């Protein structure tokens, strides 16, 4: 009796999940395999002929290999901004957790502001133009650091409270200065939360659409999310190519998720709760 009930509930849950959560992804994959005419019917059906390879080649070649450039640009922005966020936010989290001063409240307020306040778009563009760095990948790196550093600080600050202070004292006794205390003793201990930070921030920055749209206009500095946006109007009738493009930018996330499932979930839920 109990066993059958478990089976029925499970089957129903899986049927529902398949219907609501897998059908959209199946639709993307199937449409990416279709020919142009067949894709334009917008049906959820098995393709009569598999055109995935041709579609892939076309998507890669279009506009002078734009998607390859976009991958490189997105990778550049993601790698450099995540590296800077990890180091900078770990430093802040360290001092914030270890040193109790009247500044802490103010810094905590700034961290929360960074999570909540929507960035002021036009003034930022104005500032970038004044500095002469508008439309550069480097400015995009700095912006991603500024917009995402709060998340890193929150995770690190919480993690430092699990590292006993006796460890600091022992290292200081052994003659470590502040820099070697942080980089040689603390940073290696932070590995679990650093992995979480790297994975979650990479996903967020790689998937960012709005900020490259504003701060990196033009074809030369195109990022991966914007290829989709550019293709959307161009591929108005070529749904097969549009969905091949969606598939191409979704697969890296699927791979990351398969390997770092645990870190992503713990990072997103715990960061959320403390935020």
């Amino acid at each position: 009796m109990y066993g059958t009930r478990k089976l029925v509930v499970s089957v129903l849950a899986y049927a529902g999940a398949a219907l609501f959560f897998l059908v959209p992804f199946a639709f993307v994959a199937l449409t990416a395999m279709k020919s142009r005419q067949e894709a334009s019917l917008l049906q959820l059906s098995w393709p009569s002929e598999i055109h995935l390879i041709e579609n892939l080649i076309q998507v890669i070649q279009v506009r002078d290999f734009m998607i390859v450039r976009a991958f490189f640009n997105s990778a550049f922005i993601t790698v450099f901004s995540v590296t800077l966020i990890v180091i900078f936010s770990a430093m802040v989290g360290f001092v914030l957790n270890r040193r109790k001063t009247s500044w802490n409240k103010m810094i905590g307020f700034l961290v929360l502001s960074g999570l909540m306040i929507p960035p002021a778009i036009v003034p930022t563009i104005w500032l970038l133009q004044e500095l002469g760095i508008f439309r550069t990948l480097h400015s995009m790196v700095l912006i991603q650091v500024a917009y995402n550093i709060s998340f890193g600080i929150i995770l690190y600050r919480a993690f430092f409270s699990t590292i006993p202070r006796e460890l600091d004292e022992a290292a200081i006794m052994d003659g470590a200065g502040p820099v070697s205390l942080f980089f040689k003793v603390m940073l290696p201990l932070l590995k679990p939360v650093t992995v979480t930070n790297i994975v979650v921030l990479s996903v967020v920055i790689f998937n960012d659409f709005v900020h490259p749209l504003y701060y990196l206009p033009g074809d030369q500095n195109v990022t991966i999310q914007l290829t989709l946006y550019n293709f959307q109007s161009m591929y108005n009738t070529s749904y097969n190519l549009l969905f091949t493009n969606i598939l191409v930018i979704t697969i890296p996330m699927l791979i990351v998720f398969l390997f770092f499932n645990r870190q992503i979930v713990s990072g997103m839920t715990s960061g959320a709760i403390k935020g």
Partner: protein
Amino acid sequence: MTLLLRRTASQRVQKAPSIDSFYPFWFYIPAGVVYGLMFLVPTFASFYFSLTHWTLFDQRFIGLDNFREFFAEPFLLRGLINTFIFGFTTSAGKVALGMMLAVLLTSNIYLRSLLRSVIFFPVLVSTIGIGITFTVLMEPHQGVINTALQYMGIQGPRWLTSPSLAIYSVALVEIWRGVGLATLILIAGLVSIPTDYYEAARLDGANAWQQFWRITVPLSRPAVATVITLSLIDGLRTFDLVWAMTRGGPGFSSDVLASVIYKQYQAGFYGLSTAGNVTLFLVIAVVALPIVAYLNREES
């Protein structure tokens, strides 16, 4: 004796900063410089720019005229109203659906963790990709959703082309996209409720429904507060999904503040765009923050 006392006192004064000197304030500087320059400076500048008439050609101070325009022009006001609709419906939807899924996924079913992963995955997928996919699925005549509804004998609505429905359709997709994260946060809340409570309730003859409303709901309040906080702030700031699915259309019927900011920027009305930005800031500071503070006070 006094001398001795004074000496230990001064030693103590010296000793306290000496420990602290291993946690130097200059560790704040790299983060502070980037954050201050790229985030705080534009934020403060926006308060001034929002009071100016600012286009490609000229810039002059006009006081609160931009904000007056916001409340007078229907297409700007619509964006403000839709921002609230979107923020509140997505928060409510994510909490309600997320709670049902969380209860289901903490109950005794096969392969729970696989199911959790399936529901969570959309959180990681490109929002633009999701928007385009659902725009095609919601196509009124041949789209998959309406075709499926037709099989069941239901005439599907014009999801994205009907001015009164478009913003809700986009909100529905946002709920689909974000419910996985809400569910996982709520699951974390549910598993922290001691099982003794449920056993005691069962002994007293409470049924599953009563257990849910009397134990699960009140005790998962911190998790619910977190989900509301997150979805409200995300929802009020949303841009990607609206832009990918409707571009604020038909007309301006599904515009939200973030898309108004973009449209005004593209049209070259920089002052007005910045006023939209400041309005969004105020919406979050005046509406969202008190709600967040209220929920979090209740929790402790």
